[in-house]
Structures are given as C-alpha cells and as structure tokens.
C-alpha cells in the first residue's frame, strides 16, 4: 500500500471549442486550484505538466510552459506525455515527488486546444510509425477500434445498440448541470440511434468529440495538509501500469495483438490490470467504491470499463446500465460528471478532470449531480501504446 497525498485544491477551465491558446486554459485552471487551496503560486514547489502534442513545442514542454505563464518562481518542473494517460502520469510524478519528501506542495496542470474531427497522426512519410501506418494501410481511425470493441460485446454477450445508447442518455443527464461540461443537453435513445453511424455499431452521438479545456490539482503531503486544512480528500492510489505480455486484445494503434503461441495470455488482461493495480495500492476493492469516472470514448467502451473495474462480472454490464445501477442514485454511479460524452476529450487535461470531479463529489460540492454519501471513487483510462491510468481517491 502506498502512503496518501492530499488534494488541497482543484480547478478547471470549462470544456468547449473556445479557439484560444491552450496555455490560457491551463492558467485559469491552475489559478482556480490555487484559490480553492487557499495558497499562492509561490507556495508551489513543483509543477507537473501533462503534455499536448497538438500545440507545437510549448505543448511538448507543458510543465515549463505553464510555469512561465504563471510567472517563473524557481519551482521544480516535469512534463509528462502518455497520450490519454498524460494527466495520470503528471499526477503520479507529483505524488512521487511528495512521497519521496523532495517537495511538500505540487501543482498538476493539463490543457489542450484540439482540432475538429478525427485525431490524425503526426504528418510526414513515417513508415516506421505504427500510428501513421494504421491510417495509411487500414484507415484504422480511433472509432474503428471503438467499433471493433463494441461489436465484440454484441457478438460475445448479445449487447444491443439500445444498450449502448442508454449509456449516452445517462451521461447526458448527469452532465446537464455541470458548469464545466461542453454539451449540456438531454438526448433520447431515438436521437442517438437516428444520428449517423460513424463506425458500426456506433453512432455519431456515441463517440466522444475533441475539446478545448484545462484542469489542475494542487497536491501536498499529509503533513503540510494538516497545517492548512481539515480533512482533505486523499489520493490513495495511482496505477500507471503497462500491459503484461502477451497482450491479447487488439489495441490502438496496433495491427495485431501479441501472440499467445509461446506464452499463455496473463490471467488479467491489460484493462483489468489497470484497476487491479489501483485497488491493490489503495487496499480497497470495487465494493468500496461509491462511484467511478471512466473514459467513455464510446458508449460501448464505458460498459467494458464496468467489468474491468470489477463493478460487475464480464457480460453483465448491459444489465447494470439497464437496471440504472450506474445512474446517480443507483448502486455505483458512473460518470456523474457527464463523462467524455458531455465533455469531449481534452487529452492531457482529461485524466486530471476525472480526479477533480471525484474530489467535488467527495466534498459534497457537486451541485446538481451529487452522489449522496460518496466516500471513495476510482478513475480509469488508458493511453495509446499501453499507458495505464487509474486514480483512487477517498474522503
């Protein structure tokens, strides 16, 4: 089990398509997090940036970019990139700095300004890069992989498009009153099924958009927190595991899975192992979770996460969504924030935003979407090429 660190402050810049520089979103989120913590920028000893690859060099060195924008203060710095897991990597780096005793107070920031439409690979002729080649040789966009996983649920468990659509209906309802959500509009199952198919069986309204947004967390040692606040939300675990060989599920951006011919596939698949790593570190289990924030890149993918998180057994996720188990008021609400369905993805900010949401929930400050009596929550996500991302927080 790992030692706890405290969450002293959180802040977000609302998600949207604002057309501004990503640095502005990060600075707004960071300043809100400092206000929330009751601290000054000069109190921060370490800045941990989540990188964006879509905004040129300042995005590759996001830690320093945000530090410069907030005013050089001599704070230590690191910048992390792990695709969709960048935020969790940045949180983990800050936690390591705190738990090793090098710093007491750290700021984690991630922000993105994203292009419209499909994410495309980096330009040029890059025939050694699987991410470039999957587009060139297969036309395998991200929704192609989402479609493969969704169809697999239908073939394996008899899931239906109606089951998938219900995830979006739920998340749209959850996000209605979230001031940071980009899409705040109820949708019906009929609306979803009537929207154009992008990658069968998934419709346009079931695939997450790309957004601008920023999120920040001020973290500290428990000793520092004890002097500044009472009863802060705690980070109990951060799981950044990689897969175990052979990874036998097809993953972006690969052409093939690992081969299980010489070595049997591990008992826990990659996505199961991300959650297992977090539970083990926290000394908690799925039964202890009051809620979860999961990466609903597609509606069907949210159902996969229920099973990976151990909220139900394999093949039972459709029953959970249909029974309302994962709706606010149900047994274990999933994506009370509205999820990516209401936010769209701002890559390096998203995993940080997941933790912000759980923190508001645990403090009882999630107005209009509060999970009553929330005591513990888990986030989960996965970054391209095999970056695990899961954080457990408790009150």
């Amino acid at each position, binding site marked *: 089990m790992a030692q706890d660190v405290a969450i002293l402050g959180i802040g977000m810049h609302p998600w949207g398509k604002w057309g501004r520089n990503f640095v502005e979103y990060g600075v707004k989120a960071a300043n809100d997090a400092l206000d929330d913590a009751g601290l000054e920028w000069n109190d921060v000893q370490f800045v941990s940036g989540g990188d964006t690859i879509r905004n040129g060099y300042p995005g590759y060195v996001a830690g320093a970019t945000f530090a410069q924008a907030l005013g050089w203060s001599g704070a230590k710095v690191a910048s992390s990139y792990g695709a969709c897991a960048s935020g969790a990597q940045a949180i983990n780096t800050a936690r390591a700095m705190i738990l090793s005793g090098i710093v007491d107070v750290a700021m984690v920031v991630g922000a993105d300004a994203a292009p419209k439409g499909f994410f495309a*690979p980096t330009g040029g002729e890059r025939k050694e890069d699987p991410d470039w080649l999957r*587009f060139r040789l297969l036309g395998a*966009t991200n929704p192609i992989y989402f479609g*493969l996983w*969704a169809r*697999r649920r239908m073939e394996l468990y008899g899931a239906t498009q109606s089951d998938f659509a219900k995830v979006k209906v739920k998340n749209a309802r959850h996000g209605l009153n979230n001031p940071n959500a980009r899409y705040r509009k109820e949708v019906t199952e009929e609306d979803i099924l009537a929207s154009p198919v992008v990658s069968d069986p998934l419709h346009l309204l079931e695939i997450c958009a790309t957004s601008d947004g920023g999120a920040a967390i001020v973290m500290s040692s428990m000793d520092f927190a004890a002097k500044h606040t009472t009863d802060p939300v705690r980070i109990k675990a951060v799981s950044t595991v990689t897969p175990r060989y052979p990874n036998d599920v097809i993953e972006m951006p690969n052409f093939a899975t690992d081969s299980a*011919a010489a070595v049997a596939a591990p008992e826990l698949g990659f996505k199961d192992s991300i959650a297992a790593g977090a539970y083990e570190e926290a000394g908690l289990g799925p039964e202890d979770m009051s809620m979860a924030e999961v990466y609903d890149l597609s509606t069907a993918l949210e159902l996969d996460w229920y099973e990976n998180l151990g909220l139900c057994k394999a093949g039972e996720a459709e029953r959970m969504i249909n029974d309302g188990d994962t709706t606010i008021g149900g047994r274990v609400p999933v994506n009370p924030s509205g999820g990516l369905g209401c936010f769209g993805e701002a890559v390096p900010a998203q995993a940080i935003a997941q933790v912000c949401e759980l923190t508001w929930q645990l403090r009882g400050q999630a107005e209009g979407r509060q999970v009553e009596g929330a005591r513990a929550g888990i986030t989960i996500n996965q970054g391209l090429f095999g970056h695990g991302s899961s954080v457990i927080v408790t009150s």
Partner: protein
Amino acid sequence: MSTTKTKVPAIEGWFVADGEMAQLLGSRCKSCKSYFFPKEDYFCRNPHCKGDDFEEVALSRTGTLWSFTNSCYPPPKPYIAPDPFVPYIVAAVELGEEKMVVLGQVAPGFELGDLKAGMEMELVLDTLFEDDDNEYITWKWRPVAAGA
C-alpha cells in the same frame, strides 16, 4: 480500374503475393518461438526471453473472425481515400496457429450483414489506392465461403 497500371505493394516486406493468394510475413523468435506481426527483428518482446535471432515466417492465411466494423466517413491523411469516398469494413481475425488477432480491411463486395464473429476468413490481395501509374496492393480479409 485500369489494367495497364503496375501493381506495387503498398508497403514492402509485410506480405507476399502469389497470384491472388496472399500471406502476411511475420517473424518468429528462434529461442522462444513467439510470433510477431509486423516483424520484430531486433529483440524479442517476450519478457522471459532474451532472443535476438528471428526467422521470417509466412503467417496462416485463414483464421476466425474476432470482430468487425466499418468507416462511414473518410479518415484523415495519410489514408488515401477515393473521391467519392467508399466506406470500407475492417475485420479483426484470430489466427489459430499463431494465437494472435490481425487487422485488415475486408475485400470489396461484402457488407456488415455478411459477417459474423467466429466465421472463417481468408487473406486476399486487393487494391488499397491508386495513382496515375500504379495500383497499390495490400492484404484484405474475406469470408472463406465466398472464395470457394
């Protein structure tokens, strides 16, 4: 489609063409016998193996359908989409001997309704895109019964 164009592999060394029949070229670690596609030829990715000697192997040209989907919208570059755009299906096919799942587009002429997980698929060669001089060829999957 012009018949005078030269057929060129869309990528070198990933598959062999013998008439219409296609086989993917992978590699196999000489120490632990793990298969890799695309080829691994530098260091074995099995964490229990320190092998660095590989042989090129032609992979099974049939397998069972694991899952499938399609693209109803043109993907971004570097995909070279025909104008007007033609939607395409992508299949994930599990190879029995190699115990791995390999992606490929589905050969033209098939619809989603023709596919069902577990059905037997085979590899064929087909045009991926063309320019003024060449047809660029790649591997695609199709249901076995269709080719019989």
